[in-house]
C-alpha cells in the first residue's frame, strides 16, 4: 500500500506540473521514468534505439495533450498509460512500415490513441506545410491557434490566457489568425 501511495503521489505531482504549464520538468520526469521499459519494448520488437526514443517522446507528448485538453482520466499509473500508448504507436508504425508485427502483440484497446482522421493526417505533407507556415505567424496568433487546435482549450479559457475580454473576442481573433495563416499557405 505504501508503494501505491508513493506512485500516486508522484503521478499527482506530474499531472499537477503539466496542468500548471511546467512542461520541462513534467516531460523530463515522465521521459526518464519510462525510458527503460519503452526502449526495451521497442528494441525487442524490431525497433532501433532511435525508434524507441522517438516513440517515447511521442507517448509523453500524447499524455501531455490529453491532460492539457482535459481528456485524461486517471485510471492507471502514468507509467502504465505511457507504456500502453508507446506500444500502440509502435505497432501502428510497424504496420505502416509493413514490418512483421510481433506475435501476440495486440493493440491495447484500453489505452487507445485517438484513431481519428485528424491523427492520421499528422504526418502528411500538407500538415508539415501548415506547421512550417505557422512558425511564420506572429507570436500572439501562433499561440492562439496552438491553444485552440492543439491544446483544444475552450474559447473562454483562451480568452483568459490571452487576456481577451471574452470568448467572443477570442473567437473573432482566432478567425483573423486563421485567415492570416491561410494567406501564408497560399503564398507558399
Amino acid at each position, binding site marked *: 500500500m505504501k508503494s501505491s501511495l508513493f506512485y500516486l503521489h508522484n503521478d499527482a505531482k506530474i499531472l499537477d506540473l503539466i496542468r500548471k504549464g511546467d512542461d520541462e*520538468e513534467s516531460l*523530463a520526469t515522465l*521521459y526518464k521514468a519510462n525510458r527503460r521499459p519503452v526502449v526495451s519494448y521497442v528494441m525487442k520488437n524490431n525497433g532501433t534505439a532511435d525508434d524507441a526514443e522517438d516513440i517515447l517522446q511521442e507517448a509523453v*507528448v500524447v499524455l501531455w495533450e490529453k491532460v492539457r485538453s482535459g481528456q485524461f482520466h486517471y485510471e492507471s499509473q502514468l507509467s502504465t498509460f505511457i507504456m500502453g500508448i508507446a506500444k500502440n504507436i509502435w505497432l501502428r508504425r510497424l504496420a505502416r512500415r509493413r514490418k512483421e508485427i510481433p506475435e501476440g502483440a495486440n493493440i491495447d484497446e484500453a489505452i487507445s490513441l485517438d484513431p*481519428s482522421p*485528424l491523427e492520421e493526417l499528422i504526418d*502528411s505533407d*500538407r500538415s508539415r506545410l501548415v506547421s512550417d507556415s*505557422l512558425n511564420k505567424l506572429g507570436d500572439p496568433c501562433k499561440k492562439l491557434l496552438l491553444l485552440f487546435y*492543439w491544446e483544444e482549450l475552450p474559447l473562454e479559457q483562451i480568452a483568459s490566457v490571452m487576456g481577451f475580454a471574452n470568448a467572443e473576442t477570442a473567437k473573432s481573433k482566432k478567425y483573423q489568425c486563421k485567415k492570416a495563416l491561410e494567406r501564408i499557405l497560399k503564398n507558399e
Partner: protein
Amino acid sequence: MSNSSHWTDDADVLDRYVLGRLEESERTLLDRHLSGCEQCSKQVEAEREFAAGIKLAGREKLREALRQSLKTDEANSFQRYQLIGLAAAVLVVLVGLGIFRFYSGGIEWPVKFSSKNYIIKQGPADSSAAAQGSAIRQSPQNENLGTESANGNQAPHAEESALPEGQSAGSFWLLGTVVMIPESGAHTPASAERSLPAKFSKQGEVFIIHQDGVSQTITLAQRTLHLLPHGQVNQSSAYKTVQTLVERTANGLSLTLYQEKLFRESQIRRATIEPVTEDSLIVDVEHEHIAYHIPGGWGAQPSTKTNFEHR
C-alpha cells in the same frame, strides 16, 4: 448546428467536427450530408489538414522543449560527475602523495605506547651534539630496534662536546623526541606497563626521586631557541625534536629545553617527569610528551632496584 445548406460553412461547427467535439448523433447527421456533398468533404479535409498541421507544430514545440530539458539535465549531470571525478582525482593525488612521503621517510605513523615493552633507540648522529636524544618506539614483540633496550642495556656514553660559555663540564646535549601517547591507559608513571614504578614528588620545576635511600633531583628549565649555542641546530627528522641541554648536578640532572615557543611558567609548574627505564624518561608538559634517553642513566647511581617516593 448550422441551418445553412452546407454545414461546413459554419466555422464553429466545422471546428468541432474536425476536433471530434460533437455528439455521436450530430456527427452521424453531418457525415450523412458529407457523403452527398463533395465540396463539403473537401472543406472538411482542408480543415483537418489545417488542424493537423497546427497539432504537429505544437507537438514539435513540446518535443523540442523535452529535448532541451534532457540536454540540460545531461549537462548538469555531466558537471556533477565532473565534480565528483575531480574530487576523486584530488583524493587519489593526496593519498598518493601521502603514501610517497610515508615510504620516502617524510611521514611516520604516530608512536603508540600501548604495548608493555618500550625500546629506546639511539637517534641519528648529530655531529654537533655530544650525545643524542632518543626516539621511543613501540615494539609488541620486544624487538630491539636500536642499540639498547629497556631491559638494562646501556647506551654508549656521550662524548664531550664544546660547551658554550657558562656550561659545566658535566653537561651534554640531547635531542628530546616529541612522541604521541594515548590519553587513556598506560601513560601514567605508576602504570604497571612501565618497566619502573613511578612515584615521584615535585617542588616547582624540581622533581625529587628517592632511589635506594639517595635523593635524586631532576630540574626542568627552558630557554628560547635563539639562545641555542651556535652549532646546536635542531636536526631534521620525522619526529619533532627538542634540543635539550642536560647537566649533571650533585643531586641529579638539570634539563634545559630550547624551544621556539616557550611553555608558560604555569605549564612548566604543572609538568611531570615519567621515568620509563633506568636510562630513559618522558617529560610531560601540557599535551606534549618529550622522550629522552639519558646515556648513563638519569640517576646518579643507576640501580636495578629503583623506587620513587614522595618527599
